[in-house]
């Protein structure tokens, strides 16, 4: 599931355009983002705090099994890589 500092309205636009089927959560005050220490202060288009890009693969007990924290936010994990890592959860 995906989390950002966008409001539900902004996220609905994205989902409609891209056709995603998994949950997209809104963290406009960036509180959860802060708890995960991913805050990128004032980096949003309107100066809002946003999240730096990150993926966490979490198992059924809530433990982190894999994390991807990119060094350059233009570079993201590819779906094939993530599916490979998901095999860790078997």
């Amino acid at each position: 599931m995906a989390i950002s500092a966008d409001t539900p309205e902004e996220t609905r636009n994205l989902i409609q355009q891209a056709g995603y089927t998994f949950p997209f959560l809104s963290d406009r005050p960036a509180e959860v983002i802060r708890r995960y220490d991913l805050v990128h202060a004032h980096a949003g288009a309107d100066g809002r705090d946003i999240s730096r890009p990150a993926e966490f693969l979490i198992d059924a007990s809530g433990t982190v099994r894999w994390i991807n924290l990119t060094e350059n936010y233009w570079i993201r994990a590819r779906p094939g890589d993530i599916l490979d890592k998901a095999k860790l959860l078997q």
Partner: protein
Amino acid sequence: MTARRFNWPLWAGFLLALIASFSYFSFFVRFPITRDFPWANLLLFVGAAILLVMGIGRGFARDRAHPTRSRITTSIVSLFSVVIFALFVFTIFVVGRWLPPSTGAPHVGQKVPEFTLNDANGKQVSLNELLATPIEGKPPKGVLLIFYRGYW
């Protein structure tokens, strides 16, 4: 070479430099292979550079109708093109790395903080509930949490 020819390589080079820059954000960024390293855009910049070199050759040629004006125009347009290239390189390779240290982010082996947030339809979703809710009768094996910058 006639003296009145329009210096098309100069302007084509400038236009290509603009396209090389903007096409990354509007098009090439959608494909991981051209997004992770902007080789397609760098190739377009090479094309722009070739055209600009041709344009500089023409602009500084001795048989221009208005040699001084040609040199000034050629210099300004070439300079703008270089600035466009520099801004592009800076945005992708420098600004992209301006990220917080995030040393407090959960590590492998740690339990992640629980949370409850609203989804795009305003419905409350809790991490623990999601992990406890069976999918097609079976307990979930886990969840992939994707934090992203936002839609902009």
